[in-house]
């Protein structure tokens, strides 16, 4: 009896994080409180509120008033909403399809032993340092049909007004997205490629497999986990593309590049219909959450950390 009670007392002492002599000192839950409270207030509370606000009408000044499913039925019959969802899907898919091969090639190259690698990769990663705003502003100036580069290189750009057509504007957004995000994903692939055991390549070389076959049969399959993580990050990023749309195309021509994130901004902060804006936002939240639940499931974060050596 006494042994039992003294045992539970020492357990209690360990849990409380006091000196135990033999056990290991552990911090109490108190250590997590400041960050958690802060995060609840400024990230999770808004997340709950977005759901509430989607059932209200609010002009941003007075108080929100409940209006049931009005916002949702309105959006259901809104052609721009339907179009924006399609466009979001198109932009996201295009982003993944363009960025993945480029970043794999770059990452695999950067993982090698080239002599000029250090110098070149200093330039490669510059887009990582720029804000989306700066990137969009620069590309808008570069691609301006009257004073930009297209006016000087007609053989390459035709009449030069790239952002004047639906397909052109989508192509520009995809291209700028690639420019912005490829270095990030190339870094992931560089880490992944570094982690592939050299033995595999040596064995393949002995079997007479050439560079291309080695790439297809060893490198690509070995990068599978990195690819999952990278593609999921691209999906979430693609769904929420906003800054580039706002600055490069303003959703135009017409509503041709109005994706969901931009439409949400427009509804809320330009038309002062914060209820509809919240409803669109909620759709984004749900989709993004589903995707990132998959991130945590399929994970790869620990792997990414452990492959970061030797940069």
């Amino acid at each position, binding site marked *: 009896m006494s042994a039992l009670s003294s045992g539970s007392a020492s357990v209690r002492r360990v849990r409380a994080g006091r000196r135990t002599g033999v056990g290991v000192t552990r*911090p109490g839950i108190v250590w997590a409180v400041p960050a958690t409270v802060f995060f609840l207030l400024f990230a999770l509370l808004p997340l709950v509120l977005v759901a509430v606000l989607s059932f209200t009408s609010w002009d941003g000044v007075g108080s929100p008033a409940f209006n049931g499913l009005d916002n949702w039925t309105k959006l259901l019959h809104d052609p721009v909403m339907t179009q924006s969802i399609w466009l979001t899907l198109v932009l996201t898919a295009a982003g993944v399809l363009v960025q993945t091969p480029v970043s794999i090639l770059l990452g695999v190259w950067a993982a090698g032993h080239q002599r000029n690698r250090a110098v070149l990769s200093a330039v490669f990663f510059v887009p990582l*340092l720029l804000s989306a705003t700066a990137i969009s502003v620069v590309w808008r100036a570069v691609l301006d049909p009257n004073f930009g580069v297209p006016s000087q290189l007609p053989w390459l750009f035709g009449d030069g007004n790239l952002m004047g057509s639906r397909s052109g504007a989508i192509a520009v957004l995809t291209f700028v997205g690639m420019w912005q995000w490829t270095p990030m994903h190339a870094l992931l692939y560089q880490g992944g490629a570094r982690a592939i055991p050299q033995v595999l390549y040596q064995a393949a070389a002995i079997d007479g497999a050439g560079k291309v076959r080695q790439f297809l049969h060893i490198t690509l399959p070995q990068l599978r986990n990195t690819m999952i993580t990278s593609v999921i990050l691209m999906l979430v990023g693609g769904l929420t593309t906003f800054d580039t749309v706002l600055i490069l195309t303003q959703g135009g021509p017409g509503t041709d590049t109005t994706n969901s994130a931009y439409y949400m901004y427009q509804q809320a902060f330009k038309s002062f219909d914060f209820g509809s804006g919240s409803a669109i936002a909620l759709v*984004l939240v749900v989709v993004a959450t589903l995707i990132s*639940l998959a991130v945590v499931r399929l994970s790869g974060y620990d792997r990414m950390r452990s492959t970061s050596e030797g940069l």
Partner: protein
Amino acid sequence: MRRRPNYLAGLGSLVWLVLVGFPLYVLLISTFRTRSSYSSEGPLSFPEHLTLQNYFDDFSNGFGQDFLNTLIVTVSVVAIVLLVVPPLAYAIVRARGRTISTVFRVFLLGLAIPAQAVIVPMFYVISKAGLYDRLIGVILPTAAFCLPVCTLVLTGAMRDITNELYEAMAMDGASPWRVFWQLVVPLSRGGLSSVVVFSALQAWNGFLFPLILTQSESTKVITLGLYNFQTEHGVDVPGLLSAVVLSMLPIFIVYLFARRALVQGLMGVGGK
């Protein structure tokens, strides 16, 4: 046996170099032109007369104020993150029980929340709290949205500290406080610098929160300044681009001197 260079990927990397270098060339060269030479000579040619006037103009257009505001936001965000994340990560790695693993899962889920998706309620919360159009109203949400990634990176770093070291500290009768300061913090320096890099970059480059949560000249940050500049004086491209160069200058200087640490930090972060 060393791997031989991969020529295909090498070629691709050269293409990428052109793709990255080209707009940077246009960017830099344009900032040394006058407005009239930009429209007459075009953005590609080397300007006949170089001028620094654009940079001086930026400062008389209030760039100094924008710069100061951005600096305040960045330093504050990094300070908040450094204040709350290390204790949290320490608790996640070392505390026992169901509560702490729930907390960790909440932060993992937080990785998923895009800032765009909560911007409407954020506007509501910040307005109701009386923080609209004040820098603190930008600082708090920016810091909050840095927390999930920073927590993930730092717990990763702290997990690498071996159990033997904790046991040795316990033998000495160290309190959690002492373990934290004398063992955990010094040994997770790498993770801490990643966290600083990430949160500083997020804060410095942040656009959405300032766009929605501020409106005055006195609270304008650099990214917002660029955006306003473009919508208001869109034709003054050299002026605009010189402001872009000024906005990236501090980060670029850090990059030149600490490229390895910066890239490693970004890599540890692994996401947006």
